[in-house]
């Protein structure tokens, strides 16, 4: 039996979206001082029994406010309640629970308390609970045992205090349990929903029962809960809830951006775009009911997708994209792939590719879409596509007569309907990002564009290096592609796998050192090419060893000016640049130790041993007598042991997945160089022996990368000594495998006889792959919570990939001040309507109107303390930065934190530069911006998508490092401590997340603030008082302790 009982928190796909409106709305009215408060829900519905119990049974976080109960119940009913039109166990259990709860409610009576005087008095209660006493009342050591498993399951699963009852029964003592029912708010009115439900499905009970058994009503309820109050009220009035039932699915996915104000729809692009939308939709925005109905009905929901995406991008992009001709042509292109299947057929919403394109689209000086290379090349790119995507072929044909970049944009929009990670749209996005990072005079040459495009399908995961490091020129790009092709062409699978691993490992080490600023900009090109070139021609293992060593030497020269560093020296480089403060040196030692720890636990051969053996074998080939020196080294190499098997070979054949292989590790076990050293073999034999070192070298180089990107709380890296060795670079453990250059994927999970999980693919995106695996070892702190698989890897990567070696205390202080300035401005808005309007203008860039409406109302009601804990640090930081930019006079006079920023800026202008702070405290956006460079993109929190867009939600979470940095500053930690604090605090935060769905970012915020509070109280990070540091100059001097999390 393997049926899903309930959606234990965020375990899989969901449909919920965040509510947002067209930005233009905000400028019109959302924060206007005289705007009436939205009408509160007028009715409630009673949930029998404690709310906590009901939420447990409904798979809803027990930390939500009451007004979210019914929307989330509706959401879970849609997602989990039905399978092939049959009600699932999930629904059956909630239904049974409600019946049991009503029985208990009756027992509790008007006093809402279940009371039993003694053991004998508890018979009825015990019966309802599904238990019986083991012995008659009065006997010692009595206990409850299951009598009715169905009822008993509900009892324990809903969290009834069974042990308290057992104790009372054992002592023949009274038992009492407060058993309140809870009234939770209803959208509009209960009767409005009951009336539109199917009479066939109408049962006894209240709206909760209707939602459970009528999924059409549930879907519409979920949809309406995401729409702002004024828009929702308008839709209820016309066309009315009943007429919205048929479009509930579309509305649920794509309706949250719909925004009706004062009897008109505020469309993306503002009033200037009214005509265009009227034309597309077939109804005027001035007729909201018609407009909404047509929008949701037309083209099987695809027009609604288009509308939804445009409404989510910033106002500047909206204005450009909704110019009348462009709006229509782009939609025609988007629709060209057809309207079947509909936009709601999948469990995930559509439009992620289009959203990324419209968000990141760049424009040239003439206001035309930016074109990397030229239109002719893009015609070639389209014509070179070998897929069966018909619109793509049509646009390729038409490309010969292209005159305008808009025509290319239309083709790209058409390709946004194709789910692919290497379509022309993806090529365009990647190339645009490379050019965006480069100075205007260094844009990609036509030749480089052709090379990148032609090899995109194979190497695209590696092209992120060229957008992260714009110093790498076109030659660096073309040489990489040429050499990668050469490595790819190695015919021997084992040699190819080792070459791929060593090549990629060295380039990844280069990226680490370049990212940490240890490879100077001026040397990036030369050191990159020194790392790449040695692999240009590999035909034997001894050549590979020499190439890998030479390549590593090139990386070392770039970073340290010396190609012969020892392993300890290399590890020291990787751990971070040299530090000149006691705290910095201590943290650096800690990072060194972490890397060593992984290398030890993976039982990897030392580079020093390998290089010494290699050199010695070479010397022997020339007649030198160095055997005595080499034998201990060869012994070290032979020391590696596989874990003791618990399966026989035949059992493994029968039980392990077909693709499983430990051949790479087993070959190493059999490698014994002592014989050849003792026998002083021939030069050819000694060369062969040298070649046997190549797999060891590959593993150590790969292991250095694994160790560097170790996620917090990692277990596999320390407990499966085959993990690094099992990395399959050439797909030989897959049926029909071929060399992979893409992001590594986790294989072997849940294969008990398979020897453990391992990665197949390249080293690109390694941090994410490691986080994906290690997240399963984080133990949630809340009962019923699970680790949020779709989000947590991004959270972990966002805290481990950035390092803070080059961040000054002034920068750390600035990032805290900006956040406090943002909060101060909100507080100041309480009694200042004019200020609130300005705040709304700034915040509308990154907060959806439904929430902005709530902020405005709460401030108007003089309650800022309710708002501040629910503001994202990325929002308050943005507010501080952007308000200062737009309203410098107002900012300067807004309070002491603003004054401190100005004073800091006067003394150290670079420290308060938003771009610099963005690089310091940002996160990587490999999906959204095709780079691992750290940045703050200041977007609205994105919704959850499937497939290509699955990581967008996580990448749009930019609050973590900002918040940890603020904590560090306020508690007096130096910036280098963030190298430990950020990953560790993120780990704690992750364990605390108690979310209901995969867009539940308020749950992430709650967990983050809880973690921060515990940290402030010293509960998470016992701080060593041994060292104090006097920090900063400028504002107040503080004597503070340094230390960290244990």
């Amino acid at each position: 039996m393997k049926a899903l009982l309930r959606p234990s928190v965020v375990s899989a796909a969901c449909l919920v979206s965040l509510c947002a409106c067209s930005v233009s709305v905000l400028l019109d009215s959302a924060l206007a001082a005289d705007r009436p408060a939205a009408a509160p829900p007028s009715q409630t519905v009673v949930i029998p029994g404690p709310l906590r119990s009901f939420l447990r049974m409904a798979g809803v976080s027990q930390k939500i406010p009451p007004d979210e109960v019914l929307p989330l119940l509706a959401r879970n009913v849609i997602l989990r309640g039905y399978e092939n039109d049959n009600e699932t166990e999930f629904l059956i259990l909630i239904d049974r629970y409600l019946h049991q709860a009503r029985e208990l409610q009756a027992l509790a009576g008007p006093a809402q308390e279940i009371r039993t005087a003694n053991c004998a008095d508890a018979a009825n209660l015990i019966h309802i609970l599904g238990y019986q006493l083991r012995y008659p009342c009065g006997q010692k050591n009595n206990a409850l045992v299951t009598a009715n498993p169905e009822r008993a399951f509900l009892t324990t699963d809903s969290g009834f205090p069974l042990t308290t009852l057992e104790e009372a029964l054992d002592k023949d003592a009274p038992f009492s349990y407060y058993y309140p029912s809870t009234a939770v708010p209803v959208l509009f009115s209960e009767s409005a929903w009951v009336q539109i439900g199917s009479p066939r499905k109408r049962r006894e009970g209240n709206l909760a029962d209707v939602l459970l058994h009528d999924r059409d009503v549930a879907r519409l309820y979920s949809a309406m809960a995401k729409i702002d109050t004024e828009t929702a009220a308008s839709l209820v009035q016309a066309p009315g809830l009943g007429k919205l039932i048929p479009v509930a699915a579309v509305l649920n996915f794509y309706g949250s951006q719909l925004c009706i104000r004062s009897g008109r729809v505020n469309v993306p692009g503002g009033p200037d775009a009214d005509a265009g939308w009227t034309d597309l939709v077939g109804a005027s925005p001035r007729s909201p009911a018609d407009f909404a109905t047509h929008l949701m009905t037309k083209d099987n929901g695809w027009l609604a997708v288009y509308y939804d995406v445009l409404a989510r991008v910033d106002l500047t992009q909206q204005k450009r994209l909704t110019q009348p001709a462009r709006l229509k042509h782009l939609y025609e292109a988007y629709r060209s792939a057809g309207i079947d299947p509909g936009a709601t057929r999948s469990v995930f919403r559509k439009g992620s590719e289009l959203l990324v394109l419209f968000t990141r689209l760049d424009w040239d000086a003439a206001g035309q879409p930016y074109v990397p290379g030229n239109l002719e090349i893009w015609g070639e790119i389209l014509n070179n596509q070998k897929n069966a995507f018909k619109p793509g072929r049509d646009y390729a044909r038409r490309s010969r007569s292209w005159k305008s970049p808009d025509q290319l944009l239309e083709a790209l929009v058409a390709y946004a309907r194709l789910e692919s990670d290497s379509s022309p749209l993806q090529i365009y996005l990647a190339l645009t990002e490379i050019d965006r990072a480069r100075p205007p005079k260094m844009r990609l040459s036509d030749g480089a564009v052709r090379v990148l495009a032609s090899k995109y399908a194979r190497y695209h995961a590696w092209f992120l290096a060229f957008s992260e490091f714009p110093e790498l020129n076109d030659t660096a790009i073309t040489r990489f592609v040429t050499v990668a092709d050469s490595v790819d062409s190695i015919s021997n699978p084992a040699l190819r796998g080792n070459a791929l691993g060593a090549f990629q490992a060295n380039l990844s080490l280069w990226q680490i050192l370049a990212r940490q600023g240890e490879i100077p900009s001026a040397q990036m090109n030369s050191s990159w090419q020194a790392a790449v070139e040695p692999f240009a021609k590999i035909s034997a293992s001894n050549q590979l060893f020499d190439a890998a060593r030479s390549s590593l030497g090139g990386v070392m020269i770039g970073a340290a000016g010396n190609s012969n560093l020892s392993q300890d020296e290399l590890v020291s480089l990787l751990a971070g640049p040299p530090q000149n403060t006691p705290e910095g040196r201590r943290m650096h030692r800690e990072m060194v130790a972490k890397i060593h720890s992984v290398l030890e636990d993976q039982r990897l051969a030392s580079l020093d041993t390998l290089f010494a053996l290699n050199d010695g074998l070479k010397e022997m080939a020339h007649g030198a007598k160095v055997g005595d020196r080499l034998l201990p080294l060869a012994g070290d190499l032979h020391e590696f042991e596989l874990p003791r098997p618990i399966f026989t070979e035949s059992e493994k054949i029968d039980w392990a997945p077909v693709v499983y292989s430990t051949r790479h590790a087993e070959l190493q076990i059999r490698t014994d160089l002592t014989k050849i050293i003792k026998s002083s073999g021939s030069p050819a034999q000694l060369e062969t022996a040298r070649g046997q070192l190549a797999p060891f070298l590959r593993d150590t180089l790969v292991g250095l990368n694994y160790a560097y990107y170790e996620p917090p709380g990692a277990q596999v890296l320390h407990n499966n000594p085959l993990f690094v060795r099992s990395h399959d670079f050439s797909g030989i453990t897959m049926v029909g495998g071929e060399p992979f250059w893409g992001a590594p994927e986790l294989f072997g999970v849940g294969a008990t006889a398979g020897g453990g999980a391992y990665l197949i693919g390249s080293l690109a995106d390694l941090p994410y792959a490691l986080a994906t695996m290690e997240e399963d070892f984080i133990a949630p702190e809340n009962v019923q919570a699970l680790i949020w698989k779709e989000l947590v890897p991004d959270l972990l990567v966002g805290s481990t990939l950035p390092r803070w070696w080059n961040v000054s205390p002034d920068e750390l202080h600035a990032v805290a001040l900006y956040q406090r300035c943002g909060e101060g401005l909100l507080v100041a808005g309480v009694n200042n309507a004019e200020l609130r309007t300005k705040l709304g203008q700034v915040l509308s860039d990154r907060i959806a109107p439904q929430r902005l409406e709530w902020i405005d109302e709460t401030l108007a009601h003089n309650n800022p303390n309710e708002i501040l804990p629910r503001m994202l640090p990325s929002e308050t930081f943005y507010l501080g930065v952007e308000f200062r930019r737009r309203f410098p006079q107002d900012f300067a006079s807004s309070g002491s934190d603003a004054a401190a920023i100005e004073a800091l800026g006067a003394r150290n202008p670079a420290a308060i530069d938003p771009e610099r702070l963005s690089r310091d405290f940002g996160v990587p956006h490999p999906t959204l911006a095709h780079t691992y460079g750290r940045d703050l993109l200041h977007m609205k929190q994105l919704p959850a998508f499937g497939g290509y867009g699955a990581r967008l939600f996580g990448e749009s979470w930019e609050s973590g490092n900002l918040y940890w940095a603020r904590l560090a500053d306020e508690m007096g930690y130096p910036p280098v401590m963030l190298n430990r604090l950020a990953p560790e605090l993120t780990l704690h935060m992750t364990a605390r997340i108690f979310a209901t769905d995969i867009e539940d970012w308020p749950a992430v915020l709650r967990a983050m603030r809880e973690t921060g509070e515990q940290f402030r109280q010293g509960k998470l990070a016992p701080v060593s008082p041994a060292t104090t540091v006097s920090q900063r100059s400028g504002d107040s001097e503080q004597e503070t302790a340094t230390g960290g999390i244990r």
Partner: protein
Amino acid sequence: MRRVAALCCFSILFFSARARTAGQEDTSPIRVNVVLVQLNVAVTDGKGNYISGLRPENFAITEDKIPEKIATFEEGGEPIQRLIPGPGSPVQMVSEGSGTPSQPAVQDSGESAPAARLSGANVFILFDTSNYMYRGFVYAQDSIADFVRSLEGVNKVAFYSYSRDLSRATPLTGDRSKVLLGVRNTVAGDNAALYNSLLLTVKDAAPLKGKKAIVVFSNGPDDASSVPPEDVTELAQSTGTIIYMISTQQAQNDPVSEAVFERVSKATGGKAYFARNWRDERKAFASIREDLAHLYSLSYYPASNPNRGWRTINVKLVGKDVQKYRVRTRDGYRLLQTAQVNSASTGSTETQSAPE
């Protein structure tokens, strides 16, 4: 590879020479830790009856075929006998506490063991709450609750549950009511990551001294673990943690799970039980309790051994009347790094297990 010499041996009591010089500059390239290897040994006759009353001289221990001297000896809850000194201590043979002299070997009566025999033991219960367990969920809870109540004399008990993730429902505590609360507060989950969760539990148990056991109650199939059972077994062996496994009939229908359950438990000195119904489950729990109560605890300081990999332990009975009995204990250990046995708990004050 040289660095292996600096690893902390963790089997499990430390009497580190380095520890006494803490704070001094360590310039030695190779650091040596003197460790005490502790073994929990069950001795039974051909019918499975426990044999009590054996003396230290009845046991012969070898590690990689190197004879070892027993340093401490304990039977059940009897006082610990120190037979040879730890580093820096004078050689003497002492019996701690006021226990009576050891008696000649006798078959145990089979009656329920007194609580005193369990004293000092720490028990972790790991409960499968994946959907695999759904149908038998409440019966399993009943059995576990009975087991917890029966653990009188045990030092501390922890109750963990797992599905895809581990939940430390009740960290190690001496308060049985908290454990029962944890048992009755479990909720059904989704996938089953038994070996991931078992690894984390072994790591939580690792720092504890004395007798420690993990009792796994599982339906068997694992569909979500990324560590293999081999690695978990080695860690349990190397940290001296006994693993008992109780599974429902479903595990026996899965040959992989059946094999793993039997071999993991055997390798760590524990036992596997396959229960067809809730009555069998109760019997299995009772059997585990008896087993824990009848274990001999032996320890030794390893003689000089150049092997830095897996070390094989062999325990034999000595004496003409006792050689016929069967011995069950772990069959070896591996030197570990400290990082490998550090608790994986995120360490908040509310949830962190409290090492002894």
